[in-house]
């Protein structure tokens, strides 16, 4: 590299490359702010996959029937795999997996707020697979276009598996929706509870701050939160209705002119409260994660001992 290249030149070249749709790779020059944003974003995404195992995982012992149980185990295992893929993608930017894991266990890291809500019924498993994973896929499909190469590649692999998650969730919901009145009431109750939390997943409406504009310009993300949410709503509303289920929003209606569903915004104050720790399940989620980490300690110690043996 020519040492006369100025910082402005480098930034201009970086922005040109990104605007052309080129991917940025770990060893490339990148603005500090780009690196920091991506470490934060991919780290939070990884934590979300890890914590996301818990609300559904608790139902594994009670799944009705062997096939549902196997399916649920496979789905939860996929989420663990997604977490690992994403920790690795974040690591290529210079923060170790260990540091990220410690931040999560210390309660210092953010993860998807939606997992701070409880799963009191079996129908929640279906509604999470269908609605939560659908909202996640809309976001992750957008992220396949992100300018950071390792993140985009992880998203491709993950989205493929998510389609299994959505389908098994839909199948579970559809089965209950066609079942007894009790089953139908159970699944309707789950839709009612999860509707607004899933709307919150794409984040509050962008204020189009300099920061948002910059991440759009650098193609860290390629759509605004509002666009992602609208896409999710447009996809899911007709599908929920087709099963004879209702959505807890009286003002929900299809707007012929814009060809989009207009909907009531979720309570953004609630999001703030829950993100900051005051949700129904925040404490339990972390407690379960910490216990799992402790329970796995002997395995890690055994592996470390083996490593020494190999090295000796």
């Amino acid at each position, binding site marked *: 590299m020519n040492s006369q290249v100025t910082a402005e030149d480098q930034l201009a070249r970086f922005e040109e490359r990104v605007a052309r749709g080129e991917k940025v790779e770990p*060893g490339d020059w990148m603005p500090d702010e780009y690196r920091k944003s991506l470490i934060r974003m991919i780290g939070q995404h990884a934590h979300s996959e890890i914590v996301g195992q818990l609300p559904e995982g608790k139902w594994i012992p009670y799944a009705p029937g062997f096939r549902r149980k196997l399916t649920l185990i496979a789905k939860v295992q996929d989420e663990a795999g997604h977490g690992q893929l994403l920790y690795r993608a974040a690591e290529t930017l210079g923060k170790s997996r260990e540091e990220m894991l410690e931040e999560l266990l210390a309660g210092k890291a953010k993860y998807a707020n939606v997992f701070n809500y409880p799963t009191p019924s079996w129908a929640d498993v279906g509604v999470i697979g269908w609605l939560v994973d659908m909202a996640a896929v809309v976001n992750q499909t957008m992220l396949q276009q992100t300018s950071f190469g390792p993140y985009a590649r992880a998203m491709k692999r993950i989205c493929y598996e998510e389609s299994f998650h959505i389908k098994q969730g839909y199948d579970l919901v559809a089965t209950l929706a066609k079942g007894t009145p009790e089953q139908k009431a159970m699944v309707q109750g789950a839709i009612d509870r999860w509707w607004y939390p899933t709307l919150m997943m794409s984040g509050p409406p962008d204020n189009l701050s300099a920061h948002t504009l910059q991440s759009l310009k650098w193609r860290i993300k390629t759509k605004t939160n509002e666009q992602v949410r609208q896409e999710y709503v447009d996809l899911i509303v007709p599908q929920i209705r087709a099963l004879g289920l209702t959505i807890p929003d009286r003002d929900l209606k299809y707007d012929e002119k814009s060809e989009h569903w207009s909907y009531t915004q979720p309570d953004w104050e609630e999001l703030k409260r829950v993100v900051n720790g005051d949700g129904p399940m925040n404490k339990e989620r972390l407690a379960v994660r910490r216990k799992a980490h402790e329970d796995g300690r002997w395995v890690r110690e055994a592996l470390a001992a083996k490593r020494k043996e190999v090295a000796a």
Partner: protein
Amino acid sequence: MSDTQFDTYEVFHQKKKGDPHIHVGAVHAPDPQTALQYARDQFARRLACVSLWVVNSRDITATDYQDERFFSMVLDKSYRDPKDFDAPLKETNV
């Protein structure tokens, strides 16, 4: 506490015999054998796979994207290209 930060191993995945091994990602593991097991769980639990390779990430030597000169074609290299020759032979597989 540093019991979660193992070495990373790059994973190469072969879908069926005769195909090339393709890089699919990396796993954290204390040794190559364990890396193979993690690689199977992470990259071969669903789609077809007949063989995996793992290589400690440290052992990979790579070119630098910024060093564009490394691949630059200063000279006309068309003499290396089969398309550049007018030979009335049955198409070989190019």
